[in-house]
């Protein structure tokens, strides 16, 4: 199973096995990682699963939809590598993915 590394705002590092086909958000919720709230359950409606994708991985993830881009412009402290983790589908190619979680969801 692909392993995703979640780095919380306080620096805590969680390496977690996430089932291929599910989302980076689901991996965090399944493993009770603080910092991803995911109020809408992954329907791209709430932007409470905002994360920063490690620069080395940004190009390996399909780009955000217009809806996601619009949502990301409104989160606190958006960056070029901001994504909604519910919209990142985990695949075998993403084994080793690193995401950082923002202060606002901490």
């Amino acid at each position, binding site marked *: 199973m692909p392993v995703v590394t979640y780095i919380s705002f306080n620096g805590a590092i969680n390496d977690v096995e996430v089932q291929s086909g599910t989302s980076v958000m689901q991996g965090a*919720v399944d493993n009770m990682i603080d910092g991803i709230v995911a*109020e*809408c*359950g992954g*329907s791209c*409606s*709430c*932007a409470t699963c905002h994360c920063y994708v490690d620069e080395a991985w940004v190009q390996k993830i399909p780009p955000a939809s217009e809806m996601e881009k619009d*949502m990301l*412009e409104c989160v606190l402290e958006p960056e070029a590598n901001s994504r909604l983790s519910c919209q990142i589908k985990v695949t075998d190619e993403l084994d080793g993915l690193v995401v950082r979680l923002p202060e606002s969801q901490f």
Partner: protein
Amino acid sequence: MAETCCIVIGASHAGGQLAVSLRQEGWQGRILVIGDEHYLPYNRPPLSKTFLSGEKHVEDLLIRPETQYEKVNIEVMLGQRVGRLDRERKLVLLEDGTDIAYDKLALATGSRVRTLDLPGADLKGVHYLRNIADVENIRPFVMPGKKAVIVGGGYIGLETAAMLRQIGMDVTVLEAAERVLSRVTAPELSAFYNRVHSEEGADVITGVGVNSFSGKKRVNEVGCDDGSAYDADLVIIGVGVIPNTELASEAGLEVDNGIRVDDRCMTSDPDIAAAGDCTSHFNTFYQRQLRLESVQNAMDQARVAASALCDKPNQYNALPWFWSDQYDLKLQIAGLSQDYDELVLRGDPGTGRKFAAFYLRQGRVIAVDAVNSPQEFMFGKQLISKMLEVDRADLANPDIPMRSLLPRA
């Protein structure tokens, strides 16, 4: 000393989150979640959408897999109903006769559908939509070309209508009020949803009360007060929900439309918390007692309730928000629009499928309905929670970025 035990009654959004939050907040003792359905906590919103269409399966709906509850030692007892609470002896009495002692208790009993006591309501093919089991019973009746009648033009009714239409059924929505979504939105929004549904080929008929269902073995007709009748192979009734407060009221807890909780989500018993659809709380934004039916409220109250049960109380002061997906429309709603005295439209609901409606009261934004307009929703939330006065002309002008309506950070 024996291990302390917290029992959570209810295993949906609120109950599941409450149990997990208890562990996260450091509850050391036993945690037992009791649910009357046969499934671990699952996401309900997809039931009327991708689960109805068959795109999603039960395992896709689960909020967390079974292994995660085991990992943090949360026991889940499914398919069990609680018959009574004994607060004196601190016991939960199951309907099967067993009793279980608690130190702390959380009520997350949710709500159930309001049923219609009409002739023929028990015919085959007449359904409600609340649970996985409901949708599994509906599915055999879902067939392209067949006729579906939806009773009730609220969010559940309209979402179901949209999905059945997309599957290729002939869909008629019957709403008793003069317009759809009348309880929750402005007439402009109702007219918009009417237009979209008719563009998509669904008939929305308002101002008509259903009075009977008829058919031999299964339903084939829906009768109305005005004498009209509609052919139906499938009927889905969506006329609201009722909070499950009986356990609480029989146990003598304060109930006022929902189980009354304070700002820490504690009931009138210091050992009992409550969260989700079954509760009512005094809302600080709207300065009145409210019962909310939403995922956001269930999850946020669950977290606050867990904190209180662990003696680390937090205040519940989240802004209510909701969403509804129909066809290619993503409606995001922040705040509650009741009591608005002015509506500001940004974009035109009369054409196209993208606009936002801001509800104002005394010059301040109290709610927003944003259709395919996530920025209006996200920044609208901030306008509401900061209780800012806004320039109506700027708010109505889609060329002025929403961001610029907020004071610079």
